[in-house]
């Protein structure tokens, strides 16, 4: 049986089909929780926000109009939630502890190719610096990078999600990458990245 499109599922949810909502939940739980975790850095808050995003999708089901792609609508809801959360707790973001250099839960890991203990330390430090660099970007730039890099959302969709033009999205991404490049220049120069 062919996989139903998001649009078909959402139209069924609109008509009151709870099973279709379950399918959407299973399909987007991982992308949404990951998106929020990358955006807000806090795993518990990321889950709360993902739950709220699904709830908002459910609440708005009767008003859903299939004019844009479902993911555009979903990530628009998610991005607004994430940007609000970032704004609300701007100075309350916990720094990663020494025991957990990645600053995240044990289940989240970068790609691992069985390094030695020393290599592992260097790798941990490098990952922490990259993560910190991404998460110190301004909200809109961070959202643009994460949507583009991890959520496989194209420029036009990002423009709709952030309510800006496509050229503004390219500009946001350029400024974000330029900031990352400058912040991580020592690692780039030493060949650690």
């Amino acid at each position: 049986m062919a996989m139903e499109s998001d649009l078909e599922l959402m139209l069924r949810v609109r008509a009151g089909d709870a099973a279709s909502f379950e399918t959407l939940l299973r399909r987007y739980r991982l992308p949404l929780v990951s998106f929020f975790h990358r955006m807000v850095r806090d795993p518990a808050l990321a889950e709360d926000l993902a739950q709220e995003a699904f709830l908002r999708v459910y609440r708005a089901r009767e008003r859903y109009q299939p004019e844009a792609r479902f993911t555009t609508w979903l990530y628009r809801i998610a991005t607004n939630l994430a940007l609000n959360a970032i704004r609300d707790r701007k100075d309350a973001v916990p720094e990663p502890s020494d025991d957990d250099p990645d600053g995240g839960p044990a289940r989240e890991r970068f790609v691992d190719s069985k390094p030695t203990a020393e290599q592992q330390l260097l790798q941990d430090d490098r990952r922490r610096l990259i993560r910190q660099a991404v998460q110190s970007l301004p909200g809109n730039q961070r959202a643009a990078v994460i949507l583009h890099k991890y959520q496989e959302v194209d420029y036009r969709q990002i423009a709709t999600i952030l309510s800006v033009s496509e050229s503004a999205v390219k500009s946001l991404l350029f400024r974000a990458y330029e900031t990352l490049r400058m912040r991580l220049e020592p690692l780039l120069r030493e060949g650690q990245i």
Partner: protein
Amino acid sequence: MKCLDHERLFGYAHGLLGEQKAAEIRAHLAGCSPCRLIVEHYQRLDAALEEWKPTEPSAWFDARVRQAVEAQEARRAASGSWGLEWVRGLALASLGVLVIAGVAWLTYRHRSVSTPATLATQQAPQMATTQAPSEVAKLNPVAVTPRQGEKTGKPAPELQSGSTALGEDEDVGALDDYDLVANFDVLSEIPKKNAGVAN
């Protein structure tokens, strides 16, 4: 050789340029090592970012979402029926307030038109204790009509009832009321005492 601006190099590194522009930049990069390094840094940065893998939701995430949706549905159902009751209650309360206000207004109108003397009787004692007769006169001219021949030290205020002025020889029905006249006695004493204090 002049280096290219970084925005163009970024566009090239991310495949955002058309074929012609990309070819121009490729030609430039062949002879410009600083620009080549910048493009290489963008590409290495991209590769490093890709190492950041997704975060698995907790085992209870789906259950929490389902629970939140069910709670939302329950609230919606409850607020739907309660909302109807609330609107009905508000309509009834508004109607009650309107009826009471209407009755009160009609009662007030009826009293003020038919029994001005009664009102004067009720108001005069209260005013006598706190206000000078001249002030009372402004508020209720009928209540401070001086007795004939009595001097108050001041010219008698011009008396009016509504829009009709009363002459000295006109009969004032309120003066037939014993309590009201008794109150005039009290009032007439006040200026004398005040005058004594002033002197």
